[in-house]
């Protein structure tokens, strides 16, 4: 199981994480990234490196065999890293003169501004650079892009990431039930060098999408062979590297393309991607010097590695949240309670929010998970930016003086505890002598079989037992767990989410009633018709003002408004409102924001990773 594609990360690792910075330059995420970048340069930029010695070969290990290296079909972070080395899209992530990671034009001469049309759609026109070629020598044309996009988005291919095209006009019609297979995206090759694409409305993360693997060009005659992406002989790409060899389950070797348009900038001649997901094996190979980069480490070794390799052990932010998910339909009240309907749901919301306060996130982060994670009290992860470029999570919650929806600093824990106990006293019987509640039902906490998740589950179990809330722990194997959680056959379950792009909507649209990721079952099942939620958007210029509506009448409406809103200020305000409503249910109990751990040898310089977690080795030098 993969890195992030098996292992903690393995489990959650199958997710793609995109972060990032929009088009506006100076976001604080970028500032933060700039500082990590600087640290990385300092740590790896020792004197010897500056002499510019470079072996030209780097050995890295990200994860096990990628499920697919077809840009349209890939859905893993490690696969995306390989694809960014093999393919060039219209845009790419790169370092600017200041060593800051930013979006740059790649195949396109420039990343143009869109032109708004009267119907609200926005049209972008891109011109391809001269001299772009495929690895077999044929020229790259505009129609290769258009073909690739239609292929990746279309229902015939059934790609996991087909929805990345839902911003493009024509997508909804194309994937509608029973749609004609002739329907296409609103994208057109005007001539060999010009691409015109129309979006439903302006989206702030469009340039980011252009650098995403699913948006890479592929050639029709190449992909006609279904197995094209599984063997080097049939793998035709247009990026800095070509696939030299692929020894399945063993190693993939990328070889620099001398005829690549920017070949002069590429300092690494050969990259060996070893395919392993056994973290102990990865560490053994790193420690004996065989590999210069490993993308995962054994969880129980983290504290040692931090001490032993202060400059080589790197812990970077990642756009994801680890949280505990309650099933909204799980009854929480004691048998003696007479509450029902909306009153019951409201009481349960309050109870869940109180329980969230009982968990000591600093203890979990520092003594259990130990991977540099950041305690969380909101769902939209650290690293996603707000309208003004500040951190979205810092602006979340009703109290502007604290970060998030409640205070997770170490000093606040005692107060949180008292507050929570007082709230719970409204609904349960409290025995002053033992300091415990006596009539809280016992819940089963479900997690997928993994040491890391187990340790966190045990920590939470122990803390809650202190006030008489008893959790039974149950673990299930990964695929079974996903199915159980999705179907809502649980009371409480561990959960995690990594964003697909730097926009809070990638976290918020999970929780609409019909979403396939609505694990908390909000607006579904027994409570589907319960009118317990209120929302007032009138101050933002909307008619929506609902007192006691169902989940579908409230949350779904805000999310729909967000998706068509074109004024950034209003849009972000709406997203904060959506998160307020989501957090008021208490179904989402955030624990921490994810970090990306990796180890990189001191002899390597010029490495960076994109906000999306993709790793870039092409501009590296290895001083060996």
């Amino acid at each position: 199981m993969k890195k992030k594609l098996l292992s903690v990360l393995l489990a959650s690792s199958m997710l793609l994480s995109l972060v990032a910075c929009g088009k506006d330059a100076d976001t604080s995420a970028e500032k933060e990234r700039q500082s990590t970048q600087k640290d990385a340069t300092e740590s790896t930029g020792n004197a010897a490196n500056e002499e510019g010695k470079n072996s030209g070969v780097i050995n890295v290990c990200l994860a096990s065999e990628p499920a697919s290296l077809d840009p349209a079909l890939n859905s893993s972070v490690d696969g995306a890293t390989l694809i960014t080395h093999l393919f060039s899209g219209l845009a790419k992530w790169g370092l600017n003169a200041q060593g800051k990671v930013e979006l740059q034009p790649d195949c396109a001469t420039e990343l143009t501004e869109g032109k708004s049309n009267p119907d609200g759609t926005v049209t972008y026109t891109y011109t391809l650079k001269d001299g772009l070629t495929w690895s077999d020598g044929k020229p790259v044309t505009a129609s290769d892009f258009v073909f690739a996009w239609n292929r990746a988005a279309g229902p015939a291919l059934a790609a996991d990431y087909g929805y990345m095209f839902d911003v493009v006009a024509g997508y909804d019609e194309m994937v509608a039930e029973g749609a004609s297979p002739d329907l296409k995206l609103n994208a057109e090759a005007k001539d060999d060098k010009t691409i015109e694409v129309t979006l439903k409305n302006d989206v702030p993360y469009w340039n980011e999408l252009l650098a995403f693997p699913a948006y890479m060009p592929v050639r029709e005659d190449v992909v006609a062979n279904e197995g094209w992406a599984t063997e080097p002989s049939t793998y035709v790409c247009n990026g800095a590297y070509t696939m030299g060899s692929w020894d399945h389950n063993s190693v993939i070797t990328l070889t620099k393309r001398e005829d690549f348009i920017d070949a002069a900038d590429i300092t690494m001649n050969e990259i060996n991607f070893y395919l392993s997901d056994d973290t102990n094996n990865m560490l053994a190979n790193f420690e004996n010097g065989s590999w210069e980069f490993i993308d995962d480490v054994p969880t129980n070794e983290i504290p040692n590695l931090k001490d032993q390799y202060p400059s080589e052990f790197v812990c970077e932010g990642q756009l994801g949240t680890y949280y505990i998910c309650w099933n909204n339909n799980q009854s929480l009240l004691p048998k003696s309670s007479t509450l029902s309907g909306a009153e019951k749901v409201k009481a349960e919301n309050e109870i869940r929010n109180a329980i969230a306060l009982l968990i000591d996130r600093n203890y979990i982060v520092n003594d259990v998970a130990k991977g540099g994670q950041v305690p969380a009290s909101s769902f939209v992860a650290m690293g996603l930016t707000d309208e003004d470029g500040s951190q979205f999570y810092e602006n979340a919650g009703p109290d502007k003086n604290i970060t998030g929806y409640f205070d997770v600093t170490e000093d606040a824990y005692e107060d949180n505890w008292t507050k929570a106990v007082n709230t719970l006293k409204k609904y349960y019987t409290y025995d002053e002598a033992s300091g415990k509640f006596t009539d809280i039902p016992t819940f089963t906490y479900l997690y997928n079989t993994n040491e890391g998740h187990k340790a966190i589950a045990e920590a939470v179990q122990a803390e809650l037992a202190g006030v008489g809330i008893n959790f039974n722990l149950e673990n299930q194997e990964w695929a079974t767990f996903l199915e159980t959680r999705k179907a809502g056959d649980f009371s409480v379950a561990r959960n995690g989410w990594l964003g697909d792009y730097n926009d809070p909507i990638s976290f918020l649209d999970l929780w609409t009633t019909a979403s396939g990721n609505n694990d908390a079952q909000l607006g579904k099942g027994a409570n589907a018709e319960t009118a317990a939620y209120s929302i007032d958007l009138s101050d933002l210029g909307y008619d929506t003002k609902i007192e006691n509506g169902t989940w579908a009448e409230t949350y779904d409406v805000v999310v729909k408004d967000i998706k068509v809103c074109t004024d950034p200020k209003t849009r972000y305000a709406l997203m904060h409102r959506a998160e307020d409503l989501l957090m008021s249910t208490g179904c989402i109990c955030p624990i921490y924001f994810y970090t990306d751990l990796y180890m990189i040898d001191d002899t390597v310089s010029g490495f960076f990773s994109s906000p999306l977690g993709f790793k870039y080795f092409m501009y590296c030098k290895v001083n060996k």
Partner: protein
Amino acid sequence: MNGYILMTIIYFITRQVGETMNTKTLMYILKRILLAIVTIWVVITVTFFVMHAVPGGPFTSEKAVTESVEAAMEAKYGLDKPLHVQYLTYLKDIVTKFDFGPSLKQRGRTVNQIIADGMKTSVKIGVIAAFIALIFGVVFGAIAALRRNKFVDRIIMIITTAFVSMPSFIMGSFLLIIFANHLKILPANGAAKNGLILPIITLSLYPMAYITRLTRSSMLEVLGQDYIRTAKAKGVSGMKIIFGHALKNSLIPVITYFGPMLAYIVTGSIVVEQVFAVSGIGRSFVNSITGRDYPLVMGTTIVLATLIVIMNLVGDILYKIVDPRITLE
């Protein structure tokens, strides 16, 4: 060259078989082959239905795919059909075309390709490990028996006890730390040059220790037999007694261990391949289960089960050939 060796081996086996064969044993062998086929069919059937009964599917992922995408994928791979239809189609494809179908996870590759790729490495490791285990096991066992209760015997017994009781994932990690991390003389990764040495050693240690102990005890038993005493009395040289009489007969139990040893190597390689990141079939097997890659689960299970069934059968028949006293019923 390999073909020639194989032909020779087959020739000698058939000749030997011919000599010991009578209608009764022939019937027995036929019966066993039939039974083997039934066993494999049962394995296929049970695996097929249990696999589909387990929750979760090949297209389940943390980020839920839309229902239309899932439906399209299921239709593409025939997973939308009733289970018994899928089962019959599957049986038909393997029997008539020897086609295990496409992998659901590694899109674009067939299970036949994946198994063929994995077998290349796994067979190499397995065969070499089996040979090492046999040769060293027999030699050490014989030495221990001949030096019974002497210092050498004690040492061999202590070491083999340790090897027999240590699971392969501990042994593997142990060797990895010593040879790859401290001494740095061998690589920790199966893909590297000489990368298969550590996995082979890890895999061979348990059967080698087992064979050593087996050879030792059976050799001791044989050495106490009357015919050895007779040979000694006749003045046959010590060497000739050991190699001509004692060793040959003391190997009979070793041959019976052939099947279990293969089973150990097959299952052991699942662990060892993981520890050393070797690109064998064992790793595909484990990954296919966690990923619910149905055709790959079936393919690897069938191949591994067939291998074990055949090797047990061969072991039993060999047993009969080397020891005519055995009657096969």
